[in-house]
């Protein structure tokens, strides 16, 4: 194997599994350490730099970081990364000064470039967040009377209180964003032709809920009782819908279905069933959303495929389903399926939660914007530019429904492109991440981080009591971690960014590090091909996707030091045991590039007041 090039920032970045998995590359271990030190405001700002909405995401993020977290491989459960983010947001005003003073500000002198953002969802808001401090004048057009996009209209208040939304969106708007509410864009041509804007960002989401065209879907007696999930949630959020029938069927078992069933309970439904076509394990909803719904006594009925609506006595009486049976192969995939009869489920209302689509009725055909077969715009996955230069897409509008943290990352990337575009620079050339390494050695056996393994199990989120929470529509169910819980949970983080950095020139091959490693990461072996070296490690390499570090040849024997990164708990014992400091524990900081990076501010582009 080739010696590993640890100078490439992506090497050490990958070791920080959570940060690598986070679409916006949030520096998780750094903010967790700050929480442990009680520096909540600092922790909040570390978050905000990458994910823009720590309070929102600390409640409702899809958390792609958690399945990736190393702690989940070492033990059963990952660090509660997301809930610790909420701790930083909830307690950011303790101990430290108001974070408002430390937020980015827009310069008084503008750079003369005007940007239009369509839609006030997280994607557009991120673009505004990144461009305002650089002197841009950003105008955001929003169809509804409040900003936030689906975060406002679809994510229910019992998961995400409006106060949190208002606050974090406010931090962006307060930089002087020109927000035009109740202003739907009905023609992109008109906007482009107005010549008002140097670039346009489309962040209009994927606003169309899928329908289910089964018999009697449009029967006059039924039509008012069959709802499209995202439209129904929106109507609830804006106070247009106040009630629902006693028995409600939800079709589909994704995250939208979970919000629909729990909302139905809060509007007075007594019996809510979520109807799933397939068995558990095929559900799209996140495990924790399923758990929360089931805690509220929502029944999830598996293996029922909807067949038709049933109208009786001039009203919707229920639905007929086919009962399904599935044969699974060894890898758990469906090999065969068959219907084994029918079942009738009575209900007053049906809510369809089977997916969303993009829809751009307001984009004309002849603007040079190409669309694919699914009516999705052709968007470059790196630059987020459409086929028409100067028009960028991001969030759900770009590649179909995803989630908030992806919308944020799209916003960051689009902001980089817009900044380059406005400077006449090629958008394909991207500013690169940087890497900084700093030793954590303090003394002979002292390190500037907590290297002792904390054997705590993952803390459980406390909830409002089952009776209490239904009293109002928007009582937030999750209470947030207590101080004790936060401290214990923070201690579970393994500090994956405090890296084991190896210098082959110093090693005397004494075996001390190999012997002391509690999880048998290290081996000194004769070099070979990767697949072959993997068979000769001290402990079996369990995770082929986790990279092996390979050193340069060692002085005495020409063997190489190999480290399987998979289970390293970053305890630093290898470095403590090494007589020659060939191993050192060094904190890596990955400098993620944002819009301002790579382009020196010109005189009219001045971003900071000179002191």
């Amino acid at each position, binding site marked *: 194997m080739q010696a590993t090039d640890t100078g490439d920032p992506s090497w050490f970045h990958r070791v920080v599994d959570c940060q690598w998995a986070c679409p916006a590359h949030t520096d998780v271990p750094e903010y967790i350490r700050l929480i442990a030190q009680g520096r909540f405001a600092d922790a909040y700002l570390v978050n905000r730099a990458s994910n823009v909405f720590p309070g929102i995401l600390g409640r409702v993020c899809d958390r792609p970081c958690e399945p990736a977290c190393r702690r989940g491989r070492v033990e059963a459960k990952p660090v509660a990364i997301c809930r610790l983010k909420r701790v930083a947001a909830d307690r950011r005003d303790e101990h430290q000064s108001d974070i408002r003073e430390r937020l980015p500000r827009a310069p008084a002198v503008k750079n003369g470039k005007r940007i239009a953002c369509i839609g006030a969802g997280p994607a557009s808001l991120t673009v505004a967040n990144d461009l305002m401090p650089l002197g841009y004048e950003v105008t955001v057009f929003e169809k509804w009377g409040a900003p936030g996009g689906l975060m406002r209209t679809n994510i229910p208040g019992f998961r995400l209180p409006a106060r949190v939304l208002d606050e974090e969106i406010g931090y962006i708007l307060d930089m002087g964003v020109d927000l035009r509410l109740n202003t739907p864009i009905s023609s992109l041509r008109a906007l482009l032709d107005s010549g008002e804007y140097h670039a346009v960002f489309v962040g209009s989401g994927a606003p169309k809920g899928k329908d289910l065209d089964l018999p009697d879907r449009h029967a006059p007696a039924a039509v008012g009782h069959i709802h499209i999930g995202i439209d129904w949630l929106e109507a609830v959020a804006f106070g247009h819908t106040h009630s629902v029938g006693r028995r409600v069927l939800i079709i589909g078992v994704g995250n939208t279905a979970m919000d629909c069933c729990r909302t139905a309970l809060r509007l007075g439904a007594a019996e809510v069933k979520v109807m799933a076509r397939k068995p558990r394990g095929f559900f799209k909803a996140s495990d924790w959303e399923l758990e929360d719904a089931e805690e509220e006594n929502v029944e999830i009925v598996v293996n029922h495929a909807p067949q038709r609506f049933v109208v009786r006595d001039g009203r919707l009486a229920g639905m007929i389903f086919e009962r399904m049976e599935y044969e699974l192969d060894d890898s758990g995939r469906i090999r065969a399926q068959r219907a084994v009869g029918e079942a009738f489920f009575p209900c007053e209302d049906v809510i369809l939660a089977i997916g969303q689509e993009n829809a751009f009725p307001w984009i004309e055909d002849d603007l040079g914007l190409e669309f694919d077969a699914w009516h999705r715009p052709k968007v470059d996955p790196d630059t987020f530019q459409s086929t028409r230069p100067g028009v960028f897409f991001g969030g759900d509008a770009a590649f179909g429904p995803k989630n908030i943290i992806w919308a944020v990352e799209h916003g960051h990337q689009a902001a980089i492109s817009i900044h380059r575009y406005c400077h006449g620079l090629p958008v394909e050339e991207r500013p690169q991440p940087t890497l900084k390494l700093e030793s954590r050695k303090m003394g002979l056996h002292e390190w500037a981080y907590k290297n*002792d393994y904390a054997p705590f199990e993952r803390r459980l989120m406390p909830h409002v009591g089952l009776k209490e929470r239904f009293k109002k529509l928007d009582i937030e169910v999750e209470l947030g971690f207590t101080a004790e819980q936060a401290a214990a949970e923070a201690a579970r983080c393994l500090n994956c960014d405090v890296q084991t950095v190896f210098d082959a020139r110093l090693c005397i091959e004494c075996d001390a590090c190999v012997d002391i490693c509690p999880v048998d990461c290290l081996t000194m072996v004769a070099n070979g091909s990767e697949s072959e070296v993997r068979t000769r490690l001290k402990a079996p390499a369990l995770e082929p996707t986790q990279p092996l570090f390979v050193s340069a040849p060692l002085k005495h024997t020409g063997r190489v030091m190999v480290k399987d990164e998979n289970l390293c708990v970053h305890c630093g014992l290898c470095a403590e045991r090494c007589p020659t400091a060939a191993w050192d524990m060094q904190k890596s900081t990955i400098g993620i590039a944002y819009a301002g990076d790579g382009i020196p501010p010109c005189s009219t582009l001045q971003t900071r007041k000179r002191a």
Partner: protein
Amino acid sequence: MSFIAKPRIDHPGLPKNALGLTRRDYEGSMSTLCAGCGHDSVTAAIVEAVWGLAIRPEQVAKLSGIGCSSKTTAYFVGGGHGFNAVHGRMPSIATGAIAANRDLYYIGVSGDGDTLSIGFGQFAHAIRRNIDMLYIIENNGVYGLTKGQFSASADIGSQAKRGEVNLQPPVDPVLTALTLGCTFVARSFSGDKQQLVPLIQAGLQHRGFALIDVLSPCVTFNDHEGSTKSWRYVRENYEEVVHADYVAAAREITVDYAAGEATEVRLHDGGRIVLRKLDASYDPTHRGRALNYLREKLRQGEHVTGLIYIDQKSPEFHEVNNTSDMPINRIPYERLTPGAKGLAKILSRYR
């Protein structure tokens, strides 16, 4: 030395032995030796070997004298029995314990100072009695614990860290053991676990006194340029003459040896030691030739390693002394003590 303990989290893929235990179940308390000390590597090799033999931890008795090396019995098989004797006196404690209980595996760990200076007489008599134990010398050429004075194993011309050169001839424990009639004589290197682990296993299964002289660099006082026991010097000047693998009675030999390359020595427990000669002219069952070979190599400045000599025929301590088959702590009290009348009878014989 570390201030934090090695955390008790295991690699989920860690293999288990016949008792369902992992290597980590054979660890002891945290080492307080210098970082990079060869002795810690020997500790790791003992852990690996005892785990591999699936010996229950409570079947192990660990004995030692005084020195950095002698401290290490605390660092392996935490579930075993232990006795830390005064300087150089481990062999007599071992002799007594072995006489009283033949059911345990005895592992003695000593240093070149502990064995070849103050304990030299005790060492010689333990060999002469052929007591059934594994005796490991962690040989670094210095008194590590007392800050690096030359020990009796320091080679002529070897330089101390302060600069003085040793002028006295060394006591070679392997040559000494061979001349004293030792029935299992091996040398190894703390930096070569592939050699050391099977040697420890073979030594534990050998009936009688098994000596392994392990070159184990003192990283603090004897790892410099000019030392003949440094990591670098040993690595460049050690030569394996016979590689030994221990194969348990129930197990098939799975390694393929080229024809004529391997010979077997059958042990009393039915297990075998498979010997692979790396120098075809060498015969590890011939004491005289072994001695000549070693002397020759010594002149060339080579550390000969591997299983140097093995003799399964000479009677060991229990046979010669007709000791009790049953550990005396399990013999009923009435049978163990003659009682007042019995004692009077015995005493009368000497009047």
